[in-house]
């Protein structure tokens, strides 16, 4: 199977890179083993919320120099300030053209609402989620929060109490109607995605509209857990039209309905641009010739190799098995790329779960052009994008989505510039 570019990993980084390449006419294939971090997304994309030293970031472009001083191998630092700013400015229009509508304020951070009801710094937010500019004030005085009775992955009282602290009153409305009762038959079905599937049915949605219209009273806005809009946004748009009040979604505990939809939209965009998406296949290994990847083998295709001018590794970190940790080392399973990690697992962890966890800093070593390194030698046609990169801590910094998107766009640029 011959392609211009083979992308291993179908999460945010793999899809963004694939779209960027396919839209420029490249023949691309994405091999994806299934879930990605998008499946538990908050509905927002972070660029950089916190510097490694713990100081807060309000505008990531202005924090670049401090980041460069503190984390010299950070993917953003490898990009250089100019490229970082240029690519970051492209993200919102890029996502928009791909069908993912986001709101943001340029290169500055804004605040989103967490499932705990607190406000948290972020960069771009899906347009059906609320955002605010201030960390301690909401744009409304009175809100109506609706939730399905018995849905345990969204606890309204957390939100009510946090909102009250910052001067916003909430009324809580639990709904249950016949169309949803079948969910209770199987006790493990009460998850966001299963409920969302029920709301793909028009009659259930209409019932919800009616409930909201009857009960929302004098609230300025209606807030609903993200349990609508799994497959298409039509349902959500109908809801927003008919409720006669601004309606926003709030994130739930996983799985993330908006995250799954975002992934599907990006995948469709990639396929519409001519890309081939192979879902449920896993890359087993590669054959190198000199400093190049010559052939790539997958589980489903046995001894028929993928042959591509370039290979992009976007396999994620531990969760997605882009990195694998054993008791004594961390390795990259596809091409056995050089990985930066500390020896001795005692220093991988902090016993406070909420402190900096060093294992989250580990990643694949690359050159300045994000090309992978095998036993000290740069592989000429293997690029690395997303969570498996070295030099950053996505959770502590709040930089996971940003690194995925920016590194993917950059890698796509590198590959395209080669052809010229």
């Amino acid at each position, binding site marked *: 199977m011959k392609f211009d570019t083979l992308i291993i990993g179908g999460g945010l980084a793999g899809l963004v890179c694939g779209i960027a390449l396919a839209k420029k006419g490249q023949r691309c294939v994405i091999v994806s083993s299934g879930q990605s*971090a998008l499946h*538990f*997304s*908050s509905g927002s994309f972070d660029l950089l919320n916190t510097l490694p030293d713990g100081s807060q970031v309000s505008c990531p472009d202005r924090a670049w120099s401090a980041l460069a001083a503190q984390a010299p191998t950070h993917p953003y630092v490898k990009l250089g300030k100019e490229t970082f700013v240029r690519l970051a400015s492209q993200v919102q229009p890029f996502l928009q053209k791909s069908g993912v509508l986001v709101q943001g304020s340029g290169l500055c951070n804004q605040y989103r609402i*967490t*499932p*705990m009801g*607190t406000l*948290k710094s972020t960069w771009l937010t899906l347009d059906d989620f609320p955002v605010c500019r201030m960390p301690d004030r909401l744009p409304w005085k009175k809100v109506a929060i609706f939730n399905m*009775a*018995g849905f*345990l*992955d969204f*606890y309204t*009282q*957390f939100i009510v*109490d*946090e909102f009250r602290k910052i001067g916003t009153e909430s009324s809580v409305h639990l709904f249950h109607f016949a169309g949803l009762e079948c969910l*209770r038959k199987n*006790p*493990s079905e*009460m998850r966001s995605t299963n409920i969302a599937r029920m709301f793909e049915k028009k009659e259930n949605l209409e019932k919800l509209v009616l409930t909201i219209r009857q009960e929302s009273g004098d609230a300025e806005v209606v807030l609903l857990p993200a349990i609508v809009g799994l497959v298409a946004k039509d349902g959500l748009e109908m809801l927003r039209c008919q409720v006669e009040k601004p309606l926003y979604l709030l*994130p739930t*505990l*996983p799985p*993330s309905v908006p995250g799954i939809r975002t992934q599907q939209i990006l995948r469709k965009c990639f396929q519409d641009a001519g890309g081939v998406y192979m879902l449920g296949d896993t890359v087993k290994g590669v054959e190198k010739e000199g400093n190049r990847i010559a052939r790539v083998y997958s589980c489903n295709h046995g001894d028929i190799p993928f042959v591509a001018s370039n290979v992009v590794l976007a396999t994620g*970190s*531990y*969760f997605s*098995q882009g990195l*694998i*940790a*054993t*008791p004594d080392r961390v390795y990259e399973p596809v091409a056995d790329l050089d990985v930066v990690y500390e020896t001795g*697992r*005692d220093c*991988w*962890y902090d*016993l*406070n*779960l*909420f402190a900096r*966890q060093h*294992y*989250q800093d580990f990643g694949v070593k690359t050159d300045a052009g994000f090309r992978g390194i095998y036993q000290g030698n740069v592989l000429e046609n293997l690029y690395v994008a997303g969570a498996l990169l070295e030099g950053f801590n*996505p*959770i502590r910094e*709040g930089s*996971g989505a940003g690194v995925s998107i920016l590194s993917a766009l950059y890698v796509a640029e590198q590959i395209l510039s080669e052809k010229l």
Partner: protein
Amino acid sequence: MIESYDVIVIGGGATGAGVVRDCVRRGIRVLLIERFDISTGATGRNHGLLHSGARYAVTDAESAEECIKENMILRRIASHCVEETDGLFLSLPEDDLSFQSKFVEACRHAGIRADVIDPKEALLLEPSANPDIIGAVRVPDGAVDPFRLTASNIIDAKAHGAEVLTYHEVTGFIREQNRIVGVKVLEHKTKEVKSYYASIVVNAGGIWGHDIARMVGVTINMLPAKGALLIFGHRVNQMVLNRCRKPADADILVPGDTISLIGTTSSKVPFEEVDRMLVTSAEVDLLLREGEKLAPVLAQTRILRAYAGVRPLVASDDDPSGRSVSRGIVLLDHAVRDGLEGFITITGGKLMTYRLMAEWTTDLICRKLNVSAACTTAVEKLPGSREAVEEIGKKMISVPLAQRNSTIYRHGDLAEKLAENTVSEYSLVCECEEVSVGEVKYALNELDVHNLVDLRRRTRVGMGTCQGELCACRAAGLMSSMHKYCTKRAKEDLASFLNERWKGMAPIAWGDTLRESEYMSWVYRGVCGLEWSQKQEE
């Protein structure tokens, strides 16, 4: 108002709970004081092995005899806490097979049935066992759930009028000349200090009993011995697997509920460390290395957690060097030993003999109080164990099968309280362990739950493979909605619960466990923005 009792028992482990139950059933007014939750010490941090006594047969005949007697009693009185799995003592090529005959002889002498079986037959009985074995002996080992056992003793004691105060810490004693007449207690929640009076105070504080005794100027020569264990993600073996040799490190693999446990190591630790038992990577490596010899499949089995407990070993009174250590029961009447009236210490022993320890202690109390009632705890069944599983199931036929079976497994006949549950209460809070909303509500209403960790001890919420990823948040929400605490406390409790889970995961955080941990970080720190301050830890 002066709060006065016949007896105050310090320590909510199995021993303390057993003493309280025995006392109250003999008509004695008793108060239990525990500084944290029940079973937070060594009771909750061991193998959960229903010893047949075979392990001690060669080295300690007295303990072996006590074990087999109590083993048979617990099967009767605590059937819902016990799994009758039987056990195998395996000889590997590196072990001396001549030990086997000595072992069997000693077992029989102690009254423990020990059948030598063909290694091939042993492998049919227990396919996970090392195929290289050269010998196998079958003994009546089993599995016992120490949380359940302790909780059930407490439930019975309370039902008969005992009072139980958890999160109350004894900070001092009230003394009149050479007699202890009461204790000063700090209530952790309110920070209030109260006094409680009793004719007799029983020190059942396990290793912490050392410091409790010191408060009244009594020295007990205790040696804190740390034992580390690993929990595997699924049940590898159906029978208990032991090495047929003199007791050594990591030579027992116990199946329990949905998991298997390998342990233990044994190392002396200083008293300053007994409240912060962390498992080291060297201990993990040793447990795995030895465990794989019993069941080679452990090398490919996911590890869920590592944890460690502290055994309260007691040196003989006549040996100040502390070398002559007994694993037997130590009952100290400080009136006789130290001239201090109204104070008794019960220590040493092991989980298996908790009931016997309680009986001895209560016998002594009765002599002092001139009570003539005899002990009934060897015959009276514990709550939860009074009905056959089939009968309980019949009464709960409307509850969906998964929830029905898991609650009966956990609560025995007490699960009947969930029979009237409505459909919304069948929803699962914890999907790994099949804990329903109804079960959580029952625990919150009736089983003295103050936080998520307490809830976990009573229901297994968060003990499955995901270690609380989703259920922790669900349970915190439920607790808050039932007004157990405000949402601010709920979030703090959620963070501290997740941190408690992480402490057991960090020593073995590689492979799938690290994947799970990273996911947990993403969800709670990333999506939820949950934080945790140092202040909370204190």
